[in-house]
C-alpha cells in the first residue's frame, strides 16, 4: 500500500467515531497521511470528534426534515469518489450497516464486518471476524480498495489524542438522494429494562421451561442470587415471554457475568456465542446429551423443575449458616 493513505471514518454515534479512529490507527501504525471523520451533528459533536486526533472533519450540520442519517450516503459517496481513501471505517450499528452495504454495492467491494482484531499473517495485515454464529472466526484481507470495515461498539477503546494542530473542519452540503423511503414518524423505544452485558449473575431460561407461569420459579432463584433473568431466542422472539433485551445470543446480548446458570437451555451455538465470556457456567438440562454440558463448568442432568426448588433451598440454608 502507498504511504499516502487517506482514511475515512463515519458513524452516527459520536463516541464510536473515537473507537474507529483508535482501530484505524492500530491497523495502519504511522503509515497513513490523514484520518478524516464525517460528522453529522452540532458544534459540540465536532469538538468531541476533534479530541480523537483526526486530521480533518467533514461536517454536515443538519439532515433536512423527513430524511434519515443514512441519507448522508450520497454526500459520503461523493467524498469517497473525490478523495479515494484507502480505507473506510463504519460503526457497526443498524444505520452503519445500511450505509456500508450501499457503499459496498456502488464500489463493487465487500465489507469486512464486525472486525475484532488485526494481525500479521504471512506478512500481510489481515482482519479477524466471526462466522458461523461464533462457531468459527475467519481471517480475511480485502483484495480491492478501498477496504470497507465495520467495527462494533466496545471493540476498541476511544483515545483522546493531543494533536499539534486542531483538525480542519470542512462544512459539507447535504446532497438530496433521488430515491428514498419517506420518514413519516419516529418514536423512542421504551427504555430497556436491563443491560445484561453489565449483569454480575445471570439465570438463563431455555425451551426446557414449559409454561410462561413457570418463569416465577426462576425469578425466585434470581431474587435469591441477585441475578438478572435472561433467555434464549425462542422464549423472547417466538413466544414473547420475555422482552428482546433479555435474550442472549448472536443477534441479542453478549454477557460477561461472573455466574451463568442455564435452566433448560440446550446450548445451540447461536446462543452460546453470547456466554463465552462468563466466568462460571452452570447448566441444568434433562437431556444428558445436551450440547450445553460440553461448555459448562458444572452440569446437572436432571429435570429443572426438581433442581430449582432444591437449589433455592440449598442457597437459603447456606445463607442462614
Amino acid at each position, binding site marked *: 500500500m502507498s504511504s499516502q493513505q487517506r482514511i475515512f471514518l463515519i458513524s452516527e454515534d459520536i463516541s464510536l467515531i473515537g473507537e474507529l479512529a483508535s482501530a484505524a490507527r492500530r491497523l495502519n501504525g504511522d503509515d497513513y497521511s490523514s484520518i478524516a471523520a464525517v460528522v453529522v451533528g452540532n458544534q459540540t459533536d465536532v469538538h468531541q470528534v476533534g479530541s480523537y486526533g483526526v486530521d480533518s472533519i467533514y461536517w454536515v450540520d443538519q439532515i433536512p426534515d423527513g430524511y434519515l442519517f443514512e441519507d448522508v450516503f450520497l454526500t459520503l459517496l461523493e467524498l469517497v469518489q473525490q478523495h479515494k481513501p484507502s480505507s473506510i471505517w463504519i460503526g457497526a450499528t443498524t444505520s452503519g450497516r445500511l450505509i456500508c452495504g450501499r457503499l459496498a454495492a456502488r464500489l463493487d467491494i465487500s465489507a469486512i464486518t464486525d472486525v475484532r482484531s488485526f494481525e500479521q499473517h504471512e506478512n500481510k495485515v489481515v482482519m479477524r471476524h466471526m462466522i458461523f454464529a461464533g462457531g468459527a472466526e475467519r481471517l480475511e484481507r480485502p*483484495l480491492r480498495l478501498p477496504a470497507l470495515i465495520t467495527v462494533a461498539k466496545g471493540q476498541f477503546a476511544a483515545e483522546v489524542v493531543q494533536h499539534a494542530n486542531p483538525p480542519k473542519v470542512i462544512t459539507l452540503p447535504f446532497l438530496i438522494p433521488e430515491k*428514498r*423511503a419517506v420518514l413519516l414518524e419516529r418514536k423512542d423505544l421504551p427504555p430497556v429494562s436491563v443491560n445484561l452485558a453489565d449483569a454480575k449473575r445471570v439465570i438463563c431460561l431455555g425451551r426446557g421451561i414449559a409454561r410462561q407461569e413457570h418463569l416465577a420459579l426462576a425469578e425466585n432463584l434470581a431474587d435469591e442470587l441477585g441475578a438478572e433473568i435472561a433467555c434464549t431466542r425462542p422464549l423472547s422472539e417466538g413466544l414473547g415471554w420475555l422482552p428482546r433485551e433479555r435474550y442472549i445470543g448472536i443477534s441479542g446480548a453478549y454477557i460477561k457475568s461472573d*455466574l451463568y446458570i442455564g435452566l433448560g437451555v440446550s446450548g445451540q451455538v447461536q446462543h452460546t456465542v453470547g456466554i463465552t465470556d462468563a466466568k*462460571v*457456567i*452452570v447448566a441444568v438440562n434433562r437431556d444428558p446429551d445436551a450440547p450445553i454440558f460440553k461448555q459448562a463448568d*458444572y452440569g446437572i442432568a436432571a429435570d429443572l423443575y426438581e433442581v430449582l426448588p432444591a*437449589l433455592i433451598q440449598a442457597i437459603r440454608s447456606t445463607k442462614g449458616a
Partner: protein
Amino acid sequence: MNIVVCLKISPDPEDLEIGNDGSVSAAHAEWKIGGFDLPALEAGVRLAEMHGGRVIALSIGPPPINQSKVRKDILSRGAEELVLVVDEALQDVSTAETARVLAAAIGKIEDVQLVLFGEGSADLYFQQTGVQVGERLGWVSLNAVRDVQWVEEGNLLVQRVLEQEIQVFEVPLPAALSVTSDICEPRLASMREILRASKKPVVEWSLADVGVENLSASVEILAVQAPPRAARKGLILNGSVEEAVGSLVIALKKEGML
C-alpha cells in the same frame, strides 16, 4: 406481481466439527435454510396471501444447495416457485459477489416489485447482502424492518427498529427489505403443502444463465479457525437431585460465587 424472497442455504452451524488443532470442518454438516431467513419467507407469503402476488424463493450457492430435502422445505412453506443459481464458483464467495449474482438473477425474473431478505445468514451473519442487492438494483433498500403493510398500489408502510428508536416509512416500490427475525413466526408446513411442494416448479440457472462472468473475489480468506475459548471444567454432578445440588452449592462457594 412477484415477491422474491432470498434465502441462504448453508451448512448448519450446529454440525461444525472442531479439530484439536482449532480447525473447523463443515464437511459433515447438513445444509439447511438459514434460521433468520425463514421469517422473511413467511412475511413474503403473508403479504402475497393478503394482497395477491406470487412468492418466488431465490438462492445461490455451490452444488450442495440443490438437494431435494431443502427444495421441498422451501416450497412447502408457501413459495410458489424456487429459483436456484448453482455453480462451483459460488463456494465461499463474499458479499459483493453474492449481491452481484442475486441482483442479476432478480433482473431475470419478471415483474418483481419487492425482494425480502432475512436479517443475516446462518453461516456468516454479515447482515450485508440485502442492502447491497437493493443498491445494486437501484431500489430503495432498508434493513432492520420489523413490519411491512401494503397501503396502496406501489407503496408499503414499513416499520424499522434501530438501537434506540422505531421509524415508520412510506416506501415506494420496487424495494429491497431486510427483515428482523421477529417480524413473524414461520409456519410449520402442513401435510397438504408438503405434498404440493413436489409439484411446484424449480428453475436451475448457471452463472452464465444470469449473465455473470468473471466473478473475481473481492476478499481473500486466509484461515478459518475455532475461536479461543475459556477452558471449561465440564463436570457433571452425579447422584440424586439433592446430592447434585449440594455438590453444586459447595463448588460455587469454592469459586467465590456464593
